[in-house]
């Protein structure tokens, strides 16, 4: 029962992340939706799996997978957003501030 609740929350957040990727205007804002919602969504699904199996072999492996997923997604988002900037893609029209431009000169 608890596992079902966690998995439902996870799928809901993944759905919100996908809506965010479609609706938000530029690459940088889309990455925001992609990292936050999808990471918590997947962690929630994995937690549901842990509650389903208990601390058996599958449950322990899933528990180990949560920190790996977390670090992979944050480091991946960091690399993508930095790569996007260095590739030369401009910030969207709505942007109000850009301190990074000065730092690269």
């Amino acid at each position, binding site marked *: 029962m608890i596992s079902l609740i966690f998995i439902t929350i996870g799928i809901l*957040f993944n759905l*919100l*992340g996908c*809506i*965010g990727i479609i*609706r*938000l*205007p*530029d690459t*940088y*804002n889309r*990455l*925001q*939706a992609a*990292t*936050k*919602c999808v*990471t*918590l969504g997947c962690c929630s699904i994995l937690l549901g799996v842990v509650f389903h199996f208990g601390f058996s*072999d599958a449950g*322990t*492996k899933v528990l*180990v997978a949560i920190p790996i997923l*977390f*670090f992979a997604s*944050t*480091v991946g*988002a*960091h690399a993508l*957003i*930095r790569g996007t*900037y260095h590739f030369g893609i401009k*910030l*969207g029209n*709505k*942007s*109000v*501030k*850009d*301190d*990074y*431009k000065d*730092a690269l000169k």
Partner: protein
Amino acid sequence: MRYITMFILSLIFWLLLTFDLTVPNIIVGTVSSIICSLFFGRFFITNVYKLLQPRRYFWFVIYLFVFIWECIKANLDVAYRVLHPAMPIRPGIVKVKTTLKSDLAKMLLANSITMTPGTISVDIIDDNLYIHWIYIRSEDPEIYTGMITGAFEKYIKRIIE
């Protein structure tokens, strides 16, 4: 010393991940842990005795709870901005100064910032973090520095430094 610590940690990690205590599996795990610690041991933390101080683990548990709370807040925040018809966003990249010194602490801070509401760290140059923020709430550097790093910096300082 750091190579031995990294070897032990990666062996434990291997055994947890495979969940199998037969002899061939332990041999494979030992060999791959030795290779890993030979190649990547120089990136490991320099003072391994810090791993033995219990109060760091105490702060780490508190930090974990703060972090999970911020993470849930971040998701609700993104959900609100995505579902709102007018999409209230005001994005930009801001510069934030950090007082943390070691590389590991800066890495943990940057990762934590990535998971907090509306912020992704773009780059670290010396002591400055460059952060993409989806809704810039204030123009004053001191106020937004407190808003972004304030929740985590004091815990990370107690855990790592």
